[in-house]
């Protein structure tokens, strides 16, 4: 397999995410909480690229625990990095996918923001990794 040499690559990625604003935060009519965020995401994934890399799929997910669910993973934003030149980036964006809870558990909720990436090779084995950034908290009341 051509992708064997990918194992020799030892990457050193970095990521940073700030929640700039809570745009709105409310309970939907069906009882599920929904929040809209403005995010500032910066990351350097240049070291993920080798000669056998076709692209890197990157996404930011909110991850938290609720009384019902041991794990909630909600993708908030994603993007495709086509080449090494684009692998060091920053972006300011509202969440591209809706941040909705399965229930009404988001008030005052602590959550992690995790930057995941999925390296897609020109041929061979795919691999994935992530950086977990803990310590985010939603407001104590709807707005």
């Amino acid at each position, binding site marked *: *397999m051509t*992708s064997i040499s990918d194992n020799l690559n030892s990457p050193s990625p970095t990521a940073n995410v700030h929640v700039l604003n809570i745009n709105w935060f409310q309970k939907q009519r069906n009882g599920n909480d929904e929040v809209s965020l403005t995010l500032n995401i910066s990351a350097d994934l240049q070291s993920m690229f080798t000669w056998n890399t*076709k*692209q890197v*799929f990157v*996404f930011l*997910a909110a991850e938290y625990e609720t*009384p*019902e*669910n*041991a*794990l*909630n*993973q*909600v*993708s908030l934003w*994603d993007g*495709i990095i*086509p080449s090494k030149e684009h692998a060091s980036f920053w972006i300011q964006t509202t969440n591209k*996918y809706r941040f909705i809870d*399965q229930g009404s558990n988001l008030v005052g909720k602590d959550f992690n923001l995790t930057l*995941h990436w*999925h390296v*897609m*090779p*020109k*041929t*061979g*084995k*795919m691999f*994935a990794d*992530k950086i977990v950034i803990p310590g985010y908290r939603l407001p104590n009341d709807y707005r």
Partner: protein
Amino acid sequence: MGLIADGFDSIRSIKFRDLLTQIITLGMIFSSALIIWKGLMLFSGSESPVVVVLSESMEPGFQRGDILFLHMNKDPIRAGEIVVYNVDGREIPIVHRVIEVREQHGTKEVDILTKGDNNEMDDRMLYVPGQFWLQRQHIMGKAIGFLPYVGYVTIVMTERPIFKYILIGVLALLVLTSKE
């Protein structure tokens, strides 16, 4: 005279043996193909260890005709993974990325939402009407690796069956006429 008859007999028996050898070779080709396929099934834990990408919904990561290798195990399903799933009442499995996971305490039952990288919307409209989530039983496997272009042959063969018959004919001819 006896000499000629003997010679004729031996030629006939050689021909007969050649024919037998070829039939056996053919059988061996089919059975090794079957063994490899079944072996892959066991090894990958998935009913269909190899799938061909048919749509453009995962471009530019996966293109039409790329071959995906699948793997299925007891590991939990997580956001970001590319899964192959079957929706009830739909014949063709779909290869898309998991964008949302809800895993219950204790039972470990999961609700999964998927989306094609190249699609605007998530997959809810592909599911059965009224179905909001995929569960574990819908997932046939996770994509772990891929080989570009190779599967294009099968796409051409399903869309233009004539090529299939030509290919089978040529292969059969090759096997039958080849000498060891």
